[in-house]
């Protein structure tokens, strides 16, 4: 699979003064964020701080009220989600959202949708283009299932997979869209320490493919272990940003939120 080129340092994402208001509620208020190619950045903050809202605006679920999101230099705020995904941002969800009654392999194959082109005619007439593209879709999907360690579960319905595997399947589906930036919304939620460990390792391998990772995470051990930088949100405002250890010593962060002890 193609990975995004360029080394560390190239600006991939620039978020400027991003706001999302719901009536009088400022869920997100003037947030700035820069991401470079190949970074792993964590967004932390107490519940209701606006983390998921931030991700939702970034992926076109909410249009955003003000501000700009430049991805690879292109303005993407307000684009429909599938257009954002096509430009190379993929995401997973806080509450796992798989296509429950499709197999694990099919879930990942769906992720290839935006990188493939067959319409109605090729499959209806079973043209060579159909077979050729289906073969490529399936091969790429199997490759990704293998990458997240689920290849042998490819024919299982997504809803029958264990919880931890569902999380990883969701990541595989997101990777299938060939993102340059993957946004993970609480990937370790509900996982035991061993599963956590495997996921951290997976996140590192994703970064090693050249994909930049932005994640919301509550488990401080995970955050401290893998983040190049940490961004702290509180009441929709960015209150701190920096290296993991710096951030935890920041008095404003300590005041707003001490973080949950990892068990």
């Amino acid at each position, binding site marked *: 699979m193609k990975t995004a080129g360029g080394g560390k340092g190239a600006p991939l994402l620039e978020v400027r003064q991003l706001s999302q208001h719901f009536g009088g509620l400022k869920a997100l208020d003037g947030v700035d964020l820069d991401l470079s190619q190949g970074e792993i950045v964590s967004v932390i903050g107490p519940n209701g701080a606006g983390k998921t809202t931030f991700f939702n605006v970034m992926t076109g679920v909410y249009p955003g009220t003000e501000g700009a999101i430049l991805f690879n230099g292109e303005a993407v705020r307000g684009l429909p989600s599938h257009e954002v995904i096509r430009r190379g941002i993929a995401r997973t969800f806080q509450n796992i959202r798989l296509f429950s009654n499709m197999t694990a392999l*099919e879930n990942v194959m*769906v992720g290839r949708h935006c990188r493939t082109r067959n319409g109605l005619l090729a499959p209806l007439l079973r043209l060579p283009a159909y077979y050729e593209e289906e073969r490529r879709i399936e*091969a790429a999907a*199997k490759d990704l299932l293998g990458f997240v360690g689920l290849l042998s579960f490819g024919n299982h319905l997504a809803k029958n997979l264990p919880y931890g595997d569902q999380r990883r399947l969701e990541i595989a589906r997101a990777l299938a869209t060939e993102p340059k930036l993957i946004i993970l919304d609480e990937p370790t939620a509900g996982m035991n320490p061993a599963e956590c460990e495997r996921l951290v390792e997976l996140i590192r391998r994703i970064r090693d493919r050249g994909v930049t990772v932005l994640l919301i995470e509550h488990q401080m051990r995970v955050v401290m272990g893998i983040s190049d930088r940490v961004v702290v949100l509180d009441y929709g405002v960015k209150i701190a940003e920096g290296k993991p250890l710096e951030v935890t010593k920041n008095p404003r962060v300590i005041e707003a939120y001490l973080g949950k002890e990892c068990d």
Partner: protein
Amino acid sequence: MTPVSAAKWAGLAAILVVPALLGSGNYAYLVQAGGMIGLYMILALGLNFTMGYVGLFDLGYIAFFAAGAYGAAICGAYNVPLLIELPLTVAFAVLLRLGLGVSILRLRGDYLAIVTMGFGEITRLVINNLDSITNGPKGMEVPPLQLFSWTLSGNLGYYYLIAACVALGVIGSRRLEDSRVGRAWVAIREDETAARLSGISVNEHKLLAFTISAGFAAVAGMIFAHWIQFVTPESFVFWESILIVSMIVLGGMGSIYGVLLGALILGGVPQILQVFLAGSKWIDYRYFFFGVVLVVVVLFRPEGLWPHKRRQAELHEEAA
């Protein structure tokens, strides 16, 4: 040959040969019943795109069957040849559906069901009142199907034509469901938000499935009109839309063979009962039986009688 494939071939042979043998004997009505069941199969296969794959409830689908039937009737009145009538009628139904879809597909669930139900009834009322074009409640006569100098008449001929269309419908459905677009449809049904955020243009794909449904309905409507040689608004009542939805629910949403089975049961049983119960007081209860069957199925087998099985891929570790 395995027993299953033997049974398949035997079933296929029965479908093709038995009607010809029934001829004009006591059971000739079965050929007509078979034809009607076939039309329901085409309709159910068509609605399966909207309802089975994408999961959109459509309670006004019969409107597009009506569009096909009246397309045939009006073309017949002006002696339009079949080769022009067919694309014209299908295009009309598809465009009508497209217009409806563009305006209502943002709605979800119950709201969509209510709006489509309204559309179905509006269509019937328009046909009923547009005297100058549709001849209103008096209905229109329709000439039999004619291709160049060859005319198709008699129940048996239409039975085979319908069977051929069902076969084409099945092949088309199978090929589309196992494709990039087919997977996108099912993904939308399973989780619209996740589908959108997996890079699928949800609205376009909904619209696509929605319009394909109209194509099936238009073809079924055309055949129906030419076969019965008469159309009235009475044939396109709300009940018929419900019936087709029930076929899909009974058989299994998104399952081609389930949908065919649903059409066979819900399209066939009332007709058979009508013959067997003719004259008995039970005939008034035939739809009651059917309601009971539906309730039982929904309670005890909510996935339908013949649910869809997802395709199993070959998995081996060295996959590219």
